[in-house]
């Protein structure tokens, strides 16, 4: 991260949503066979404004409004990528993946393997995840494991504006299907974003706060909650190392294991329901590769096992936050 910023005379702040736009724009400038297709991506500039201005700059051939037909939209991405394009496909909310899951699970993920390596599918899918806006059970989910469970597909979840732009560029340059799952609650979040192109390498985690005696691996927006928790915990003498997983599939086990070997304690935090969440996989990898280094069981935090409730009163306790992380770390360390 620092290298790219160093190369830039003046650091510049962008919102997460503007970083998405810029990432997509760089891809369109770089790759003449790239285009964007999805519902309301052109005329409306994207339902979150994430494609605003692109229609004017690139025209209707490359910024394509589609009908409300998710199976068709993802199929378009699969077919077009199989024969020479590099599509960027927008599926508005990750909750809508059910509409197009066969295109993803049985076609996109498996075609190359089934065809003995004779086809390449350089397709990128962008979609929004996350709860916290009273959008209820069908517009708030975190379904990354639906995708990460499919061999043949890569899944990244950028937490910052810098990573949003760099992940989109990396995904579009990758010759495999890559899902970039963005967080809708973070759209207004500001952070440093260099101009020009740069990649956040898919499959790499980042230590976003170095520490010596506790490792927290966080995913997407939970990174910011973990950083808040780390500040609170430092006042209690706990020096937390926070790792932003960034990539779910492939997952950067090495960065996590190296941290655990140093801190001897771990906790994984994500917004998806805890049962069957990616946290279970990460904990299993830690105990497999660093069991002898652990001073305590590795903890997990995810959402409770229910759909996302509408009522703000329930949603507030549903989504994990810094307080919950602090409590869990203190529990693990036996602090009161």
């Amino acid at each position, binding site marked *: 991260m620092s290298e790219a910023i160093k190369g830039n005379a003046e650091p510049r702040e962008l919102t997460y949503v503007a970083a998405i736009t810029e990432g997509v724009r760089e891809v369109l400038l770089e790759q003449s066979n790239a285009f964007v297709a999805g*519902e*309301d991506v052109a*005329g*409306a*500039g994207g*339902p979150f*404004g994430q494609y605003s201005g692109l229609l004017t700059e690139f025209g209707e051939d490359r910024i394509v*409004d*589609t*009908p*409300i*037909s*998710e*199976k*068709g939209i993802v199929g378009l991405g699969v077919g077009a990528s199989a024969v020479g394009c590099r599509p960027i496909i927008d599926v508005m909310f990750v*909750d*809508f993946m*059910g*509409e197009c899951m066969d295109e993803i699970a049985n076609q996109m993920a498996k075609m190359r393997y089934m065809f003995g390596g004779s086809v390449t599918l350089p397709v990128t899918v962008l979609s929004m995840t996350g709860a916290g*806006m*009273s*959008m*209820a*059970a*069908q*517009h708030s989910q975190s379904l990354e494991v639906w995708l990460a469970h499919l061999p043949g597909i890569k899944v990244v979840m950028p937490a910052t504006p810098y990573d949003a732009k760099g992940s989109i560029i990396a995904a579009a340059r990758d010759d495999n299907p890559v899902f970039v799952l963005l967080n809708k609650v973070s759209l207004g979040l500001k952070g440093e974003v260099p101009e020009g192109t740069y990649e956040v390498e898919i499959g790499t985690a980042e230590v976003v706060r170095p520490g010596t005696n506790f490792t927290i691996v966080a995913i997407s927006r939970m990174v910011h909650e973990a950083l808040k928790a780390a500040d609170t915990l430092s006042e209690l003498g706990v020096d937390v190392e926070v790792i932003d997983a960034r990539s779910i599939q492939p997952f950067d086990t090495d960065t996590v294991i190296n941290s655990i070997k140093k801190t001897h304690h771990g906790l994984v935090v994500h917004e998806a329901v805890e049962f069957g969440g990616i946290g279970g996989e990460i904990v299993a990898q830690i105990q497999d590769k660093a069991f002898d280094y652990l001073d305590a069981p590795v903890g997990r935090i995810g959402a*409770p*096992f*229910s*759909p996302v*409730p*509408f*009522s*703000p*009163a*329930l949603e507030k*306790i*549903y989504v994990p936050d810094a307080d919950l992380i602090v409590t869990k770390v203190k529990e693990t360390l036996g602090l009161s």
Partner: protein
Amino acid sequence: MSKQPTKKVLQELHLTMVRIRCFENAAGRLMEEAKIPGALHLYVGEEAIASGVMQNLSNDDQITSTHRGHGHLVAKGGDFSKMFAELFGRSTGYCRGKGGSMHVSNMELGMLGANGIVGGGPPIAMGAAFANRFLKTKKVAVAFFGDGASNEGSFHEAVNMAALYKLPCIFVCENNGYGEYTPQAKHQTIVDVADRAGGYGIPGVVVDGMDVIAVFEAAREAIDRARKGKGPTLLECKTYRFYDHVGVRGMGLNYRTDEELEKWKKRDPIQSFEAELIKLGVMTQKQIDKVYSKVNDLVEEGVQFAEDSPFPEPSELLEDVYCVKGA
């Protein structure tokens, strides 16, 4: 062929439309005041459709709704207090605060839910219609959906199956000319969604969705046909939403012209019907005014009820994920 609707029916149609309009205007205002959280998709401008169709249904018949669902529940007999409480996220709401605007529902009224998934309703209505016949009832199921939803595979699969099994199912397309911010001409090449009926071997009917009597009569025919075991109809109602896709003023996107909006507002389904009622001598202006003041009192009462209601307890979070034996 069709009997003139009775005075009582005309007055009921009017009342239903006014109930929807007043409910929606209040809901929109409360959303803008941030008293209602989340996103609301308002039904203002489209009242004639829910009112005209539902006039032909009893509480036993079922409907599936859309993200733009308040009007359907109001027309099905929804109680303002329980509806506002739901929109406010309170435990006294129709869904105990767990669903909100996009999932408001009530099984006793045969309202199988607003739906956050575009095209989510038609397959469910088809399934309900299947059960209606399987259980040897005379009930029918009605699926409401938008022009945009008619491009989802789920719509096509549901219509084909309903046609194949000759189910007591009616597909009501609320064609307001837009799917979110995309005009119909940019999401499908046909002008009449009803044309799609031909592909499934069922009748497709186009009706003026701003004319409550026209909707009422076309729906009556389709529903009678379904009840008699003659199978589904695709009924398309041409309409317009007076507010933005979400909320009242929405995101301020420039996707339709003021002239277009004004043109449709001149055909306001309630105002034009009121002029007709007065002309026919069915109601006086005074009686009409009284309807509004009564309905607005109910709105106020409902909002007050919602504001006075408690939020769900934390312990309710994990309730109703599954049904528990004996509970």
